[in-house]
């Protein structure tokens, strides 16, 4: 009996987890009074939780296996090439080149859309796309006007993370490089503005490009040593780099004011007008919104360009890309520099929003948080990454009582995504090129071979 076996397995697993988590979960020592607190009720929680968890886990694993199935090995397929190449190349009707994605590229998004008689292509039609974009913009613009200041503030923070996630997506989603030091560039941007403001009274608008430029410089600085590194070493070196930046920021007190941080950083200004707090928060919101729109535009264009292609190829197979003439050194530098630019911009915005920064805001887990957004949404997928960032910032905000479990859940989320849905919520799909029939060249001298 499959179900019975399944249940027995899960029961065993539950028992295993009860034993495993016993010391940490159940016993709690008060080292001051030297008393022990036994929290037996948690044992029940663990047993039920892991029993159900195991059933669900196994169910999804089975489903994944059934879907991915025994993938047809390419070698087993009949080679359906014509045995002899026809002397004349067949005049394929290229106008009918498949524009619906091959089945294996279809995701739940496509299936869902198909159910209501649409496809992703529907959204590319101007008649659909333009009103949608206008509506989205309308909502975004109206948002601060109809909601409270508190809500607007949260949304600013979410938008900052959208920028960060999209920036990191250039490095990790396109280039396939696991960058664990992204928060360092965020810190560089934030500190650039904070320091300029603190010492020289430089305003937000001047600091914005400077922050981006300084951050880019750091990006290139980091990229140079990691150029030759393989993926896993790259991860650890970027992580180390971020720690170095944070440690320097903490200890170089004469410049950075150390762990206590920099206070009363100026908020953004608007043509020298004096703004009330609520006005300036709304202004920050619109600046964030504007920057996010620019980011989306730029990242979209980069993705569908030569550099985007280079990065994807490099992420897929570095050696083959080099052998085919791709200058991977340059591509890597570009990816790191571009990624850093967005972190820098986000950092300046962050500093101006909170008006106070200290090194604690840029710990390693900040990088991991941004990574989680990219992974959850779907590496390389712009709508996915945006969704991931919004979910991971807004959900904990609205589920306040659960917010202490935030990092625990993010950790679990990363594992679960990798095991069950490595492509993310909205998986990236390769672009399909439409070929115009008139573009097709007449094969010259095809007849004499």
């Amino acid at each position, binding site marked *: 009996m499959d179900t019975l076996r399944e249940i027995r397995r899960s029961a065993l697993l539950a028992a*295993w*987890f009860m*034993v*495993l*988590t016993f*010391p*940490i*979960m159940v*016993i*709690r*020592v008060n*080292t001051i009074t*030297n*008393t*022990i607190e036994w929290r037996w009720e*948690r044992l029940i929680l663990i047993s039920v939780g892991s029993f159900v968890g195991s059933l669900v886990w196994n169910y999804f*694993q089975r489903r994944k296996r059934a879907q991915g199935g025994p993938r047809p090995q390419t070698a087993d397929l009949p080679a359906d090439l014509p045995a002899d190449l026809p002397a004349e190349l067949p005049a394929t009707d290229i106008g009918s080149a498949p524009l619906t994605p091959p089945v294996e590229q279809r995701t739940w998004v496509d299936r869902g859309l198909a159910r209501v008689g649409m496809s992703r292509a529907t959204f590319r039609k101007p008649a659909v796309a333009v009103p949608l974009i206008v509506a989205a913009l309308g909502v975004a613009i109206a948002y601060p006007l109809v909601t409270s200041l508190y809500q607007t503030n949260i949304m600013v923070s979410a938008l900052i993370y959208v920028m960060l996630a999209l920036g990191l997506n250039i490095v*990790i989603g396109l280039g*396939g490089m*696991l960058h*664990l030091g992204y928060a360092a560039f965020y810190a560089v941007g934030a500190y650039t503005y904070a320091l300029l403001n603190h010492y020289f009274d430089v305003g937000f608008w001047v600091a914005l490009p400077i922050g981006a430029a300084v951050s880019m410089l750091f990006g290139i600085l980091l990229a140079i*040593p990691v150029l*030759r*590194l393989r*993926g*896993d*070493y790259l*991860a*650890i*070196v970027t*992580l*180390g*780099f971020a*720690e*170095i930046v944070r*440690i*320097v920021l*903490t*200890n170089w007190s004469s410049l950075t004011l150390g762990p206590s941080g920099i206070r009363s950083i100026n908020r953004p200004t608007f043509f020298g007008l004096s703004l009330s707090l609520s006005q300036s928060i709304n202004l920050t919101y619109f600046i964030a919104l504007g920057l996010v729109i620019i980011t989306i535009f730029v990242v979209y264009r980069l993705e569908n360009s030569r550099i985007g292609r280079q990065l994807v190829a490099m992420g897929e197979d570095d*050696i083959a890309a080099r052998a085919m003439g791709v200058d991977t050194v340059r591509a890597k530098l570009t990816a790191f520099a571009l990624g850093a630019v967005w972190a820098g911009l986000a950092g300046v915005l962050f500093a101006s929003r909170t008006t106070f920064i200290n090194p604690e805001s840029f710990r*390693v*887990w900040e990088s*991991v948080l941004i*990574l*989680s957004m990219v*992974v959850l949404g779907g590496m390389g997928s712009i709508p996915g990454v945006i969704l991931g960032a919004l979910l991971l910032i807004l959900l904990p905000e609205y589920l306040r009582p659960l917010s*202490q*479990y935030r*990092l*625990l859940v*993010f*950790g*679990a*989320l*990363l*594992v679960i*995504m*990798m*095991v069950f849905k*490595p492509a993310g919520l909205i998986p990236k799909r390769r672009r399909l090129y439409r070929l115009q029939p008139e573009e097709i060249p007449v094969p010259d001298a095809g007849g004499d071979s």
Partner: protein
Amino acid sequence: MNVELFVNLFFSGLTRGSIYALLALGYTMVYGIIQLINFAHGEVYMIGAFTALIMTSVFTILNLPALAIVALALLIAIVWSSMYGFTLDRIAYKPIRNAPRLSALISAIGMSLFLQNYVRLAQTSDFLPFPRLIPRIPFLNAVPGLNSSQFVIFVTTAVVMVILTVLIKFTRIGKSMRATSQDRVMAMLSGVNVNRVISITFVIGSVTAAIGGVLISSHIGQINFYIGFLAGIKAFVAAVLGGIGSIPGAVLGSFVLGLTESYGAGYISSDYEDVFAFVFLVVILIFRPSGLLGKASSQKV
């Protein structure tokens, strides 16, 4: 030159080095077999220390004799850590054994974050005082600058290294491990139960990590949920320094790193103590990517 300071720093460097070595072994062995940086390895070490702390308190309240407390707490810490190591592999790594490397790395990061916060939420985020499990050894008073917990750490590390070397060189499972690390598919075809070998590797790594965790916590005297992270990263640096995949390399790298940090902190600045490891890492990876004792391996084309 101040001889006393120099000697003190030497011993504290060796102590660090020993702990890094106990941790680095886990990284290097796992990397040797499945080419994965087990980011959550430091968390296993932290859990080992927490388990030992909890059990010591329980046994102290039960009024067990001192020696029994130490032995039982250490034993339980080791057993539970290896259970965590084993479970960790089964949940986070085994299902994606054949996925791209990036997936496994992300999964490892996730596991690390999860375990840290699991301990933070189930226990506390504060520092807890860790009992002195290591008794004073009178005859060590003769050696200036060396205290008994340092001595015990060196001896234990040495013993663990010897046992491990014997295990890997001369036993059947050691042979299977070496075979698996050279060529997983071939090992499988020759009848090696690769999944078992991988599990055992995780268990061995967890055992040494737990020993390291308990020893250093007793030496330093306090722990919190975050201790595994930095220690883990540094031990990884040590493993890379020595040449990842090489066990003697991990030990050598650990001592080099431990001594560098100790002298760096003592003579340069203790504020930047943690920076040395990372600078070291970058320099090594640029000039000798295969580490001090690693084989110069070129990418297969």
